[in-house]
């Protein structure tokens, strides 16, 4: 009898805990979908929603403030998006607020970003329409990447042409690297420069020993010795 009561209590605890976990889970999911918070609806019309779906997040200054309630086609070129937003943020969204469709990273879900608008404008009302800003869709980003790829292809083509010219020995750089006659001439020039430098050194030695400039060079030598002595004394101190 006692063990029967014990097992009933344990069963009661088991069932209560299980149902409690379920209710807590449902509550948190509902809270995320703003089922238990006071909200209001806003609408905007867009030409292209880039895959936006009901349930995607709505952000204001990077904070999730709501979700997309519905996305439906109203004309052949217009889509109406209805969003539900936390009522606490209503005072920050002005009449000229703008909505744009962005993405959570390259692979992430779509999000609606709300630009609050001019602070001098009056506060927005429930069920109002706001403007839709043309955001950077993935298609546009891919288009830009295509332009970059085309430019890169052109640059690499030009580089290939330059390399070909160099290889053929055309142009200054090509001659420098590929022309053997030019290389021999350059080699000879270096030899001549070396010879000239040797002759110049001999001339300078002769000038140093001539009586006209001997005084100048001796004076320079003495100055050098003096500064050397001074440096030695300072180091001793």
């Amino acid at each position, binding site marked *: 009898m006692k063990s*029967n009561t014990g*097992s*009933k209590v*344990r*069963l009661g605890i*088991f*069932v209560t*805990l*299980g*149902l409690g*976990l*379920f209710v807590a*889970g*449902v509550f*948190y*999911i*509902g*809270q*995320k*979908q703003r089922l238990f918070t006071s909200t209001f609806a806003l609408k905007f019309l867009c030409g292209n929603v880039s895959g936006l779906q009901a*349930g995607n997040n709505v952000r204001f200054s990077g904070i*999730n403030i709501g979700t997309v309630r519905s996305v439906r086609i109203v004309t052949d070129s217009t889509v109406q998006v209805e969003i539900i937003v936390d009522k606490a943020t209503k005072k920050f969204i002005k009449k000229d607020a703008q909505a744009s469709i962005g993405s959570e990273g390259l*692979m992430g879900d779509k999000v609606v970003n709300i630009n609050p608008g001019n602070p001098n404008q009056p506060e927005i009302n429930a069920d109002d329409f706001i403007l839709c800003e043309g955001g950077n869709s993935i298609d546009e980003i891919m288009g830009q990447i295509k332009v970059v790829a085309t430019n890169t292809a052109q640059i690499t083509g030009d580089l290939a042409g330059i390399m070909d010219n160099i290889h053929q020995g055309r142009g200054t750089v090509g001659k420098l690297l590929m022309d053997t006659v030019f290389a021999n001439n350059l080699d000879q020039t270096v030899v001549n420069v070396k010879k000239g430098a040797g002759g110049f050194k001999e001339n300078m030695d002769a000038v140093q020993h001539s009586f006209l400039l001997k005084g100048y060079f001796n004076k320079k030598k003495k100055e050098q010795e003096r500064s050397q002595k001074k440096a030695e004394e300072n180091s001793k101190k």
Partner: protein
Amino acid sequence: MKKDATVLEENGEEAKKQASKFSIAYLSERLDDFFGQVDTFTRFTLRFFKEAFMPPYEVNEFLKQCYLVGNKSLPLVGLTALIMGLVFTMQSRPTLTKFGAQSWLPAMVAIAMIREISPVITALICAGKVGSGIGAELASMRVTEQIDAMEVSGNRPFKYLVVTRVMAITLMVPLLAIFSDSISLLGSFIGVNLQGDTTAKLFLSHIFEKLDFIDVFPAIIKTFFFGFAIGIISCYKGYNSNSGTEGVGRAANTSVVQASLTIFIIDMLAVQVANFFT
């Protein structure tokens, strides 16, 4: 010489048996047997629904069965869920890291565990542990003529033995699946923190940001069907067992095999139905 003759005779009989397996008469017999089984199983299920809603109700036996199925299976289900959550997180991490999507790990594991893995694993564990137990228990009662004795004494064995067990499993498997979901998320949290540092609040925030009602409700609803399938199949196999003690083992074995197979079939159908609403 005499031995050789016996061996040849035995081989001949074996060959005859093999040949008879493909004969039309044999196939016809098997088909008759199959449709006969379908008929008795359908009658058994209809009898369950008829008796389940008709008083008197065996409340005490029902609660006892709930305790045996729910509380007694929780440690096994919980441990399995913890390990599954942990392992699944650790296995998924390298692939998500390659894509730079590590922050998706909690949500991905949670959706996979709640939508599919936890309900199926829980149901399979219950089919193995509870289904085989019920099959063997009822079969041994049938073999030892306890069920016949109950019928003779006017104790309504079907209501007492079958209805209570099937209802208990049908209601306890969803609860066990909810526990399994929660414990697997705990395992995932441990897995995430083994190679990183994530607070419980951020972990839960990541999960509930991506989780939707469509992930939770179909998964919980299908566990009622899993539980019912385990209960009705194992009770049918045990209640209609024959061939003496050999039948007890067979009832336990076929209960597990057929219940497990049915779980996968129901799961496949549930996915199709859930996809229809999304």
